[in-house]
């Protein structure tokens, strides 16, 4: 007996866990992990709604583009983290205080 609500509950849990990961971890790469979780929770909602409510495939298209943008974002974000490590020798979030190095 799987209804729309069950999918909403799962994506809510994912969303909350993603936010808690972003808040509680000190390592910048772990924060990027949290961002991935949150993006996936949103994409899951789109596909669930397109199955239960709208019955056309717009939800699929939207979650496809969410995956595309999450990939681009992860690529650039990790490049920044590596550059930050090479300048600051550490990837502890509290070190990222100035805008210029």
């Amino acid at each position, binding site marked *: 007996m799987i209804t729309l609500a069950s999918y909403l509950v799962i994506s809510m849990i994912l969303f909350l866990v993603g936010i808690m990961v972003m808040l509680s971890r000190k390592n910048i790469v772990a924060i990027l992990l949290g961002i991935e979780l949150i993006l996936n929770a949103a994409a899951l909602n789109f596909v669930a709604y397109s199955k239960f409510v709208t019955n056309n495939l717009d939800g699929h298209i939207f979650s*496809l583009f969410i*995956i*595309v943008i999450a*990939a*681009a974002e*992860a*690529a650039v974000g*990790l*490049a920044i983290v*590596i550059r930050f*490590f*090479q*300048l*600051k*020798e550490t990837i502890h979030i509290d070190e990222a205080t100035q805008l210029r*190095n």
Partner: protein
Amino acid sequence: MTSTQIDGLMPVVIMMGLAVLLFLGGHFASVLLSRKKPTQLKQTAYECGEIPVGSAWSAFNIRFYVVGLIFIIFDVESVLMFPVATIFNEMNAMGEGVYILLVFLSFISVLIEGIAYCWRKGDLDWVKSYQVSARKSVVTPSKKVSV
């Protein structure tokens, strides 16, 4: 209980289950049958005889990341092209071949530009030639970080 269409995915799950079963079976058999004499020397990492110094998890050169970066961009590009490729023949038969060809080629040409840029800037070659990015003077960290 009619067997709904989703049963088509059952073999995928069954195959993964069988792989895990094979792994556990093999592992369990080896736990049962193999000798267990963990001497201290056996448990150190193999270093052609020398005593391993320091952890292996030291930082590596950046070119591994550049490869992963270019891979992820082209991976996503080919993901977007798969649906368009599947309906290419259909549209072609319906006479809209030129339209879908234009959509397809414009998508690819933008990304060919990407690989041309990386090629020209020397990101693709494994052994970095440093004169490529020597124009700007940048405050570099004191300790040189590379493998």
